[in-house]
């Protein structure tokens, strides 16, 4: 959509905007009664500040510290900005619900830009494109993953097959200690994967670490996949360095492996192309400035961690489709100085934050 905001919300991907310009545009777009969403415009009436005048830079977003947002309770249609051009089609997307009731966001085209950017990094990494097809083994349905992967496979010139995985059912099985039911579900998924692999020409896949491991344990599926696959995107849950190495070197030596960190709320932080001197085997690069990731001291959340220090993830999302003020996430990660002067931070070693009071069940997805 071409308007006054296009130069910050939709510039070419090699001309990313200044962060403070983006912050001001986001405040104006989402909080102006003319263009903002019913939710934010209404909500702002109770603020002790005016986002359109008092928020001039990234640091000013701290004013939102007193504005808790429960994304699981908002009627999602109220999140659609009024200023959206006629004909722009929004979708509603839900989180897996790892930390409680599912959160909902709306998205029209912003996530596609995030995926385009991911695809540029994949090109840089020599990830396959053009020949053969794609298979996504992971959440579809209400989850934004299916939309992301549809966009990604299109961009890479491949048709996309899907085998659905319901992360909420997995979490329930694991949470209730129903290991055998969980294993049966994974086998049900792998049977479907086998059918696709046997009859279709699959060169690229996207899935979770746990499914990759399960495939490694199923000789029939593993043999087929190892033969055909040339590119694997993994994400959804964390993967330790040794497992990554084993998958890369031992299970699928002929495939390019690329990680993707992210979730419904923050978008995709693809793996940055490795450079000599990297301190971790897989470093993620959030889509700055549209997704701003900070890492903070878990014990003292107003202290930002230093490079190579572990901290809890705080995300801020500044896009035309939706705005998320700085929000403490469930994960911890290690902050890394970004390579090649990229303006945003990078991170590695992502894992769920475990405190005494919360318990997160990490499943397959």
């Amino acid at each position, binding site marked *: 959509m071409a308007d006054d905001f296009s130069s910050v919300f939709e510039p070419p991907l090699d001309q990313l905007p200044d962060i403070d310009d983006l912050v001001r545009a986001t405040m104006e777009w989402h909080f102006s009664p003319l263009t903002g969403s019913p939710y934010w415009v209404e909500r702002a009436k109770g603020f002790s500040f005016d986002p359109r005048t008092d928020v001039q830079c990234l640091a000013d977003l701290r004013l939102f510290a007193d504005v808790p947002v429960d994304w699981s309770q908002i009627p999602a249609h109220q999140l659609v900005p009024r200023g959206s051009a006629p004909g722009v089609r929004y979708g509603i997307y839900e989180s897996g619900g790892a930390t409680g009731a599912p959160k909902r966001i709306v998205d029209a085209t912003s996530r596609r830009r995030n995926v385009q950017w991911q695809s540029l990094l994949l090109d840089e990494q020599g990830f396959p494109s053009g020949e053969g097809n794609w298979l996504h083994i992971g959440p579809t349905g209400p989850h934004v993953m299916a939309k992301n992967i549809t966009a990604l496979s299109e961009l890479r010139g491949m048709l996309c097959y899907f085998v659905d995985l319901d992360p909420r059912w997995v979490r329930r099985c694991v949470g209730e200690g129903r*290991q055998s039911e969980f*294993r049966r579900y994974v086998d049900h998924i792998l049977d479907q994967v086998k059918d696709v692999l046997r009859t279709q020409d699959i060169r690229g896949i996207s899935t979770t670490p746990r499914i990759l*491991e399960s495939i*490694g*344990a199923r000789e029939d599926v593993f043999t087929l996949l190892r033969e055909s696959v040339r590119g694997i995107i993994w994400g959804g849950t964390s993967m*330790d*360095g*040794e*497992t*990554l*190495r*084993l*998958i890369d070197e*031992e299970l699928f030596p002929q495939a390019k492996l690329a990680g993707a960190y992210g979730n419904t709320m923050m978008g995709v932080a693809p793996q940055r192309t490795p450079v000599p001197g990297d301190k971790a*085997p897989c470093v993620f690069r959030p889509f700055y400035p549209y997704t701003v990731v900070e890492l903070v001291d878990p014990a003292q959340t107003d202290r930002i961690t230093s490079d190579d220090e572990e901290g809890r993830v705080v995300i801020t999302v500044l896009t035309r489709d939706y705005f998320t003020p700085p929000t403490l996430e469930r994960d911890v990660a290690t902050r890394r100085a970004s390579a090649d002067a990229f303006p945003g931070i990078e991170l590695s070693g992502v894992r769920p934050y475990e405190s005494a009071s919360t318990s997160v069940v990490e499943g397959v997805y």
Partner: protein
Amino acid sequence: MAEAKDLHEIPLIRAGLPRHSVERAELAGVDGTLLALVHLAPPLLARLTVADARAGAERTPEPERIAAAGELFETATLNGLSPQAYCELQSRVAGVPVAVARHSLRDVAETFAGVGARFLAERPTGASAAPVPGEISTVWTRRGDVLAVIAPSNNPGTHTQWLTALACGYRLVVRPGTRDPFTPARMIAALLDAGVAPHYLSLLPGSHATGDALVEAADLSLVFGGDAAARRYGEDRRVILRGPGRSKLLHTGEITEQTVDVICRSVGYDAGMRCTNATAVFTDADPAALAAAVAERLARLTPAPPQSPDAQVPVLPLAEARALREHLEGRLEGAVDVAAKLYPEGPVADLGDGSGALRPAVLLCDRPDHPGARIELSFPCVWILPWRREQGFGPLRDTLALTILGGDEPLAREALRERSIRKVLLGPIPTYQAGRTSPHDGYLSHDLMEARAFGTSV
């Protein structure tokens, strides 16, 4: 990590081959000193290692080879550690007095040497002859090929149990306990040096998830653990559980010097950390008098850093030691610790280096059904309960080892009829004593092997 190069490094062993991992964990002594770096195996590696173990050819090690490995375990420098260096490291990290590891060197070597005799003793006589053409006979065969072992850290001797499986021809994949990877690493190094085929031996330090993956991938598993492990794996028919021992003594008649002696040795031997150490004593004499005598004797056990030859009780990081005591205080339900008054500085001896030694507890109970008899803690801790013959063996169920003091032979026969009592000793024999080929908790090989028929025509 500047000091990392001074740490003893424990690689994982994948089908006999040492391998480094990207994931590592530092191991500290109970006083907080960093001592070792352990390479960790993720769940995926458990699956891959089981596949490697399965893939190799059949090469069941001969008993002589295992015996030779026992000698190496006792005397050789293995993994860069002399026997003494191994004992010190094991004691400092596990918090077990070094005297335990030192006498275990010999005990382990003897178990290695006796594994052939044990295998033969456990095999049914009907399956002992080689099949003859023209006859249909019995053969003693494995139920599977790969055995996962989820091992504990409480006592080096516990590890010798899985040697039987090696003699049966199982390929072993061992996930060691967090605090003692040293003992299985040394056993495996000795066995490999003695020429056991590499794919028969793997060591995968790792998390619970790694253990789960291992149990799932292996044919059978030997799992050491408490009630939590029982809940986790209790339903799995492929899992052989070695849970808490809840060993006991039953005493009738007079309280003699010998009574007190056998009770105290049963409770305090090897710092009270074995499953065959006594957890409870039932007596038809005066429980208060017995408890006082036992407390007085056990209080003499010396608290000292685990690497000290004087140490006789377990040592933990101070906070953990105190937490364990607090846990005990919370479960007394009216029982009285009659040993407590013998420790003016408290039941946890602060060793001044960040660690604390757990001094013995003697808990006097007022009724035979006091729940204490089921509470087994990893230090000399004994519950003394009143008992009358008419109460029978109900209160004595679920007992790995039972010693009956007082010479009542009919009572011992009766105890043998209670299936959940796994060993009965009549007379002044401490609970931890075992015969050369007597069963520990049934014969392990009877869970690993089965008799099948085989016949050929003439």
